[in-house]
């Protein structure tokens, strides 16, 4: 009895401490709640270096704006005193930044810094599109480099439209055709016609051809320009295409294979077939884009220093110091929470699973390969291993060597699938290799052990119950804010321990037992 009271006191005490510690941090965090929830945050710096000539010298560029999937916070603009800086909104909604100087033959440097917070976005395309109004007429006209009225463009467009049943399929055909053109690192300007002729192009040629074909078929389209943010210094910018579908500009990147989708690190800067940088002809000019990815907590409008200044403990130091890769830290923090969930499912609900952390680990790998294909692959492989080991059961092999045989066959299958997938370009087959083999191995062992201990029927039943637990874990883990919450409130770990202790003393009937013992309850 005494030890029970002690346990209760300890549990209450730990819970109290954890709750108080969380409570202290709660107010500043609620005040700083940010509903934008960016996936990635980068510090970007346009670094220009140039020498002015005899006459007035200018350097112009475009600067990005906020939209539904990106947020720009301006930092400081460092210029020397002889440079004049101004911003101007142009009539096609682009914002131009202009640096002017009248000083002659002097070296100038410009650092235009801002923070870019981005999230990915995918769009759903309707089968048929609403007819466009005349307001978008300019997006249907041919231009010098987008020769949408040319006969060879018309001929190609006609071919692409032939097999299509609706507007969506037309766009898909254009996309597939342009995507299939081999990409080449061509720096010079490639127009739409040259792209067809050369049958190879970089982003600008492909995008122009895509836009030209769309315009030819009456879909308003335009070039979109920006930078693919990466944690490095780079000089290349990027262009892709946008098609106006039911009043929304929908992105298509035929170089990197994004259909109606823009990844979180795409910084959108301008629209239209423009050059990102223009300057007085003939001057010495050099530039780099200095980009640094910064750690962030998605739902917080706080910067690193502010998060560090929060009272009480947090794991932000670990994230900031880069001691541990963020993904491993996430796994580490989510594992106990997932474990608690599985413990709940097992002891309170009564779901039978292979192992306690296995459903959590499987759910983790599903985050990477996608739920549906992951589950199909997982169940397929495990059942296959079970089937393969059946004849060996009949022969009468010892348990451990038999297991090695089935696992080796499984590894063989994974490799064969990957080769076939690679050869015939079947993506879902190649993802097999990304399925963490260790997790599969453990799951397969548990399954085949269960076939011996409980028989095939029970083992399959258990496999599906494991899958159910995995699905629930997957639901929990795919809540993106969760790792961040655990980083800010590591006290939750303590709460997990106390909840598990309480769960460990739970003597109530499991939910499935209500069903099992139903006759006794009436």
């Amino acid at each position, binding site marked *: 009895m005494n030890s029970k009271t002690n346990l209760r006191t300890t549990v209450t005490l730990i819970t109290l401490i954890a709750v108080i510690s969380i409570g202290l941090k709660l107010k500043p*965090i609620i005040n700083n709640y940010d509903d934008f929830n960016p996936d990635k945050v980068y510090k970007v710096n346009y670094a220009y270096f140039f020498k002015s000539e005899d006459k007035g010298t200018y350097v112009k560029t475009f600067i990005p704006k906020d939209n539904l999937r990106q947020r720009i916070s301006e930092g400081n603009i460092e210029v020397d005193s002889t440079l004049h800086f101004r911003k101007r909104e142009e009539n096609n909604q682009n914002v131009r930044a202009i640096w002017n100087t009248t000083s002659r033959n002097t070296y100038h440097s410009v650092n235009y810094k801002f923070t870019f917070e981005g999230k990915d976005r995918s769009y759903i395309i309707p089968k048929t599109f609403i007819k466009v109004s005349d307001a978008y007429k300019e997006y249907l006209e041919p231009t010098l480099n987008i020769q949408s009225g040319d006969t060879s463009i018309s001929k190609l467009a006609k071919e692409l439209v032939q097999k299509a049943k609706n507007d969506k399929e037309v766009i898909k055909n254009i996309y597939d055709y342009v995507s299939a053109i081999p990409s080449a690192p061509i720096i010079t300007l490639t127009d739409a016609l040259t792209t067809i002729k050369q049958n190879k192009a970089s982003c600008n040629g492909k995008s122009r051809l895509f836009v030209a074909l769309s315009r030819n078929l009456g879909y308003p389209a335009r070039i979109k320009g920006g930078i693919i943010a990466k944690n490095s210094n780079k000089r290349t910018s990027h262009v892709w295409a946008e098609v106006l579908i039911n009043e929304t500009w929908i992105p298509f990147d035929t170089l990197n294979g994004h259909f109606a989708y823009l990844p979180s690190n795409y910084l959108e800067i301008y629209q239209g077939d423009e050059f990102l940088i223009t300057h007085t002809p003939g001057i010495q000019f050099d530039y780099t884009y200095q980009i640094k990815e910064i750690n962030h907590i998605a739902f917080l409008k706080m910067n690193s220093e502010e998060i560090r200044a929060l009272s009480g403990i947090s794991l932000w130091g670990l994230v900031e110091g880069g001691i541990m890769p963020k993904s491993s830290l996430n796994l580490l923090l989510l594992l106990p929470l997932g474990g608690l969930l599985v413990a709940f499912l097992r002891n309170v609900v009564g779901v039978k699973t292979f192992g306690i952390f296995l459903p959590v680990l499987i759910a983790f790998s599903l985050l990477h390969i996608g739920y549906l294909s992951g589950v199909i692959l997982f169940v397929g492989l495990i059942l296959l291993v079970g089937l393969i080991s059946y004849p060996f059961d009949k022969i009468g092999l010892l348990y451990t060597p038999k297991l090695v045989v089935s696992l080796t066959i499984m590894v063989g299958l994974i490799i064969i699938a990957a080769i076939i997938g690679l050869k015939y370009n079947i993506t879902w087959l190649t993802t097999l290799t990304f399925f963490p083999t260790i997790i599969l191995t453990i799951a397969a062992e548990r399954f085949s052990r269960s076939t011996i201990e409980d*028989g095939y029927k029970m083992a399959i039943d258990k496999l599906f119950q494991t899958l159910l637990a995995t699905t629930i874990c997957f639901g929990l883990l795919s809540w993106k804010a969760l790792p961040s919450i655990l980083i800010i409130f590591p006290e939750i770990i303590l709460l997990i321990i106390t909840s598990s202790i*309480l769960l460990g003393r*739970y003597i109530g009937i499991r939910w499935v037992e209500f069903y099992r*013992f139903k006759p*006794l*309850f009436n």
Partner: protein
Amino acid sequence: MKRYVRIKKNLKTMLSKILKIKPHKNSNVIGLNERNIKLIYPNNAKKHYPLADDKVLTKEILHQYDIPCAETYAVIEYNSDIKKAWEACKKYKAMAIKPANGCGGGGIKIIKKDVEGNWRSSGKIITERQIFQHMAATIMGFFSLGSHDRVLVEECIEPHPFFHKIYPQGVPDFRIITLNHIPLMGMLRMPTDRSDGKANLHQNGVGIGVDLDKGTLTEVYDGKNYFDHHPDNEFIVKDIPIPYWKEILEISIETAKVFPLDYLGIDIVIDKNKGPQIMEINVRPGLGIQLVNKQGLKKAIEEKTNK
């Protein structure tokens, strides 16, 4: 953030609910959680589990206290001993060969000598070589998930004719649950046409409830429904007195006393000639017995321990 706070609050109230709610309306049934925490953990020390899990160890104790059980013909620990042990055993007409640590009834072979002197197992002729192979596989751990094991060769039990009226095939056994040496509940497990000779409930066998005080059978339960007869036979089992019932209770209590395990499931068969025999004991007896007897274990504990 607000959502998070709400979720946490919900979690808390849910947890406190789980912890405070004493299942009042169904307080009689014991679930797996309660069985583990209230019955198994405090009564059965983990270090004594092998006494029940290893059939050889179980029988050593039973023999030591002269509690009736199948006669042990041989215990084989090493491959090199197989031949020697066989020489000692082959004079018997029938025997059961079992792995000491088998799971789910796997690896058990009943062999019998036919009129021509051939050994037969489930009707088919089995050569001595095959018998040796089976024993060697058992020792290598084929039926105990890879760990070294021992072979137990023992007397073959002939079921008492009493059972033939109810169902004529297989070996039925009684399961008696004891807590602190007091029998709480009992059932008779019988094979069916669909159970392949096995008497386990989850392998399509049936359970028949037992009235411990009267020593009679009650109803037949097949996992779904209750009947007054075996599903493959017409004979009405209700209120049929069980032969040797007094002895069955006596040897159950005796067995419970000699093992340092205070919550047990004791399996007993009735041999045609020798009467009740202990087959094996179980430290984690299943809870299905509550369904068979239409009674919760909690109620049984209340009734039996307050007497």
